[in-house]
């Protein structure tokens, strides 16, 4: 039972990441009709916002300490971050430590700008082009973005830990009446889940309760009609793209303490998030979110030793297997609309 | 005994009775129109005839054979062709190819793996297709992209695609929907011409009274999923029930 609860938590956590990326993907699919292979790259850019912020906060001035030597026997260069000097070593260090949460704020304008630039500069010319062309151009863009990041930050993962105060784990076992230490869950993963829930709720509320959202939803259903009504749907779609980019970016920022970011983390997520979107049903936001959590939970269960010993390799294929079963039993995924991306 | 016999057909969608006990008989070599106000069940009936929907009860027979449970392409192979509300053509193919495809379908059936033979070597079928195009005055556009045609030409092309199969029954689903008066008249002329040239049975589902009365030999009026009356156009015009159910509302 305790193992079961833990895997549900894990599944929800994985699902949060899937759902956040899939949410943006399906928004772009649904509103703009664009297959965006660069969406994973946006997630990766978000993560590197955190890296960049921590680097900025760590900018240091270098002094030479003649009493110590480096590995070659030369005098040691000591670097002291400016924030240490400005706010004192302790406060300065805390500031650097908190770079990941701070990066959320830092990433929003950046990701909005990136999304805006991408849509205006590139994607809008591809609305009327075949999906094949959209795939090629966004895939090309994804490669370019990730290679640029690789050029500046290298291929290795870069550690970006959560602030010390948020490191550690929460003991559900004691809370729920199990043995202490059996159901412990890291704080940051709980934060990630709550963050994802909040973002998803915010996006839904935005689409549900604002006029803007109403128009966009109408546009998702029938773009031409809304266009005929004289509503400038294009401008709204640009904003939608920026929002999708921003959601992916923030998901990336928050993900960095869970796994150290590297330049190809976007590609790692890309295929899975496509599967999530399609299993959820094209053009369905709740479908994408639900499928994200569903696949996350199933993946977690499939990796339990009790199951992998019975069916070896099931943890390797569970997501794809589930995707096949769902698509065969429900032609348009869990909540897909008819006619969207079926040609 | 008509070529198409619909007997006691019922179709429900959830709580909605779309078709209630529909009986219909289309006589060979006539033009039979099915009219009725919006939501009368015309399209549902049509879809039951072509295999897209399966009625809950009742029977549909074509030339003595049941069409129920057959797939659309099988029903087509039995000799029923369909013209859509908005012309359904192969927009990415040339006009000639559009007409060639039904020629192949007629000769080779629903599937044949002819991957090595070359289309241009099928002189007989090409000739057949070209004759058909000439028949609808489109031979000059044989190498055009079908997608680039005007709407009227698309309609002609679709008719040609259906006729080249030499169907025994041609189903027309509001062939003039959304057309301007001039286009509508052209279509009427085209259909008259087609009818004059060959023995063919047509079943037309139509909203536009002008079209119906210019073409139909017999008319069935459908209201709320049930046939109200069936008679000749002249009699239908003055029928009180029809005025009440359909024409009255239509003014």
């Amino acid at each position, binding site marked *: 039972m*305790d*193992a079961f609860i833990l895997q549900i938590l*894990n599944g929800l956590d994985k699902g949060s990441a899937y759902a956040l990326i899939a949410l943006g993907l399906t928004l772009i699919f649904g509103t703009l009709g664009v297959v965006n292979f660069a969406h994973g790259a946006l997630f990766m850019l978000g993560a590197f916002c955190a890296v960049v912020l921590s680097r900025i906060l760590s900018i240091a001035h270098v002094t030479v300490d003649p009493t110590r030597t480096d590995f070659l026997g030369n005098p040691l260069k000591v670097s002291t971050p400016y924030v240490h000097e400005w706010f004192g070593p302790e406060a300065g260090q805390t500031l650097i430590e908190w770079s990941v949460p701070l990066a959320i704020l830092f990433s929003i304008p950046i990701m909005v700008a990136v999304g805006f630039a991408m849509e205006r500069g590139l994607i809008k010319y591809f609305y009327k082009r075949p999906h094949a062309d959209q795939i090629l151009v966004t895939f090309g863009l994804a490669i370019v973005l990730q290679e640029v990041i690789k050029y500046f930050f*290298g*291929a290795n*993962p870069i*550690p970006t830990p959560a602030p010390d105060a948020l490191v550690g784990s929460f003991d559900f076992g004691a809370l729920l009446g199990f043995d202490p230490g059996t159901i*412990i869950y890291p704080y940051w993963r709980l934060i990630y889940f709550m963050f994802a829930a909040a973002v998803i709720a915010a996006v839904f509320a935005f689409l549900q309760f604002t006029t803007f959202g109403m128009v966009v939803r109408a546009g998702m259903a029938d773009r031409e009609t809304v266009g005929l009504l004289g509503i400038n749907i294009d401008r709204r779609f640009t904003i939608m793209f920026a929002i999708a980019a921003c959601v992916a970016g923030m998901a990336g920022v928050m993900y960095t303490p869970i796994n*150290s970011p*590297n330049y190809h983390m976007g590609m790692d997520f890309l295929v899975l998030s496509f599967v999530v979107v399609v299993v959820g049903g094209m053009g369905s936001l709740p479908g994408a979110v639900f499928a994200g959590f569903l696949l996350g939970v199933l993946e977690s269960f499939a990796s339990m030793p009790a199951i992998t010993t019975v069916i070896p390799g099931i943890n390797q294929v569970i997501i794809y297997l589930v995707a096949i079963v769902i698509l065969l039993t429900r032609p348009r995924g869990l909540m897909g609309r008819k006619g969207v991306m079926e040609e | 005994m008509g070529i198409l016999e619909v007997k006691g057909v019922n179709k429900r969608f959830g709580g909605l009775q779309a078709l209630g006990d529909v009986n219909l008989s289309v006589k060979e070599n006539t033009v039979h129109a099915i009219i009725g106000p919006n939501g009368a069940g015309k399209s549902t009936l049509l879809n039951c005839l072509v295999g897209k929907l399966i009625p809950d009860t009742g029977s549909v027979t074509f030339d003595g054979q049941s069409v129920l449970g057959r797939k659309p392409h099988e029903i087509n192979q039995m000799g029923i062709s369909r013209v859509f509300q908005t012309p359904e053509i192969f927009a990415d193919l040339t006009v000639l190819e559009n007409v060639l495809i039904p020629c192949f379908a007629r000769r080779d059936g629903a599937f044949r793996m002819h991957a090595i033979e070359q289309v241009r070597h099928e002189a007989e079928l090409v000739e057949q297709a070209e004759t058909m195009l000439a028949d609808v005055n489109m031979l000059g556009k044989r190498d055009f992209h079908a997608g680039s045609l005007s709407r009227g030409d698309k309609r002609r092309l679709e008719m040609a695609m259906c006729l080249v199969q030499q169907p025994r029954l041609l189903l027309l689903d509001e062939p003039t929907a959304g057309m301007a008066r001039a286009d509508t008249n052209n279509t009427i002329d085209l259909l008259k011409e087609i009818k004059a040239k060959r023995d063919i049975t047509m079943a037309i589902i139509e909203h536009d009274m002008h079209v119906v009365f210019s073409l139909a030999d017999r008319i069935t009026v459908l209201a709320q999923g049930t046939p109200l009356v069936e008679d000749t156009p002249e009699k239908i015009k003055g029928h009180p029930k029809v005025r009440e159910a359909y024409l009255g509302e239509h003014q």
Partner: protein
Amino acid sequence: MSKLDLGRRRVLKTGAIAGAGLAMPTIFTAQSAAAYTNEPTGSSVVLGFNVPQTGPYADEGLDELRAYELAVEHLNGEGDGGMMNTFSSKALKGNGILGKKVEYVTGDTQTKSDAARASAKSMIEKDGAVMITGGSSSGVAVAVQALCQDAGVIFMAGLTHANDTTGKDKRANGFRHFFNSYMSGAALAPVLANQYGTDRNAYYLTADYNWGYTTEEAISSATEAMGWNTVQKVLTPLAATDFSSYIAPVLNSDADVLVLVHYGGNMVNSLTNAVQFGLRDRVVNGKNFEIVVPLYSELMARGAGKNIAGIFGSQNWDWKFQDEGSKAFVQSFGTKYGFPPSQAAHTCYVQTLLYADAVERAGTFNPCGVVEALEGFEFDGMGNGPTLYRAEDHQCFKDVVVVKGKENPENEFDLVEQVEITPVEQVTYAPDHPQFAGGSLGACNPGA
């Protein structure tokens, strides 16, 4: 930045033919012309450095490439000579190899066996490379080794740790300097037993591919021999990025040691996740919960940050070694590039020198001559103490160092501290040891 003149080889190679060829094309089959594949006929010789330049191991590949460039410099008599000064064999004179200037070509393995083979093939077929070296995974090493065997050139493996490279997939033309899974197990087990006691329950998370299998087997059999108990072995997909669902069941088992048989990005993520779940702070059966990472990769360990502190593992070499060879190598590498080399760089550098030395001693580039010179070759001064290239399987036998992650690193390169050096006797095994059974070297193939 110093430059190497690469183009000259081809000019010189074909220059002689060019004169006659213009008048009348000469046709001959490549097979009959040379005594062995890519026999260098001009004043230079080409080596092929085949390393991952794209994909997750790109940084490791680049570090290997740096080491190769350094080795080429030293062989050609430029720079400070590095380990050539401390190497026990004095055959190398700093005038290239057999008097021929060393040139090189580079390629990208992408850490895929197909791409690696394509790249190696182009080096052999297009650039005339007489030796291929590099790689940072066993899959690639085995694939390229087999290719070199078929083509008739020498393969000097880069970073490859699976037993198979010199076990069931060994080849006569292939040589491995790096240590292997068995050695990691044999070196780690006594240290672990010493540190953590002999009554331990170990839980294995193993990367679901060949290297994972052989390493898991090596570690588990070595620790079981010390009295440890294996609770569970779980295979994790290569593509996994979030290991939480594999870590969580550890909490519900009675394991008190977690062995992460992961490398590279998998290692960074699984270790980070394990620490997140508070495993380091756990007490099970009255014992502190411990994590072990059998094979350390410094470059990747950097990605795990503070999480590696205090975690045991094994390494082939570390730049903080204080022997003369290591110091010389670190000095010249550090001077050239500004930071210390990784163990991948070290093994690649050493392999290049060993190859060059073998050619000098054999007096020929003929692979069969080189094989003969390397088989049973004993040397010292290359950073690992006295070392033997065993003739039976072309594996180097040397001391293995057990390390643990440093608690308070002084800089980003200062990742591990040496715990113990396990002497070579303890890590030596019979060539027909069950973990290595099933392959045969075959005969050396000179190609042509």
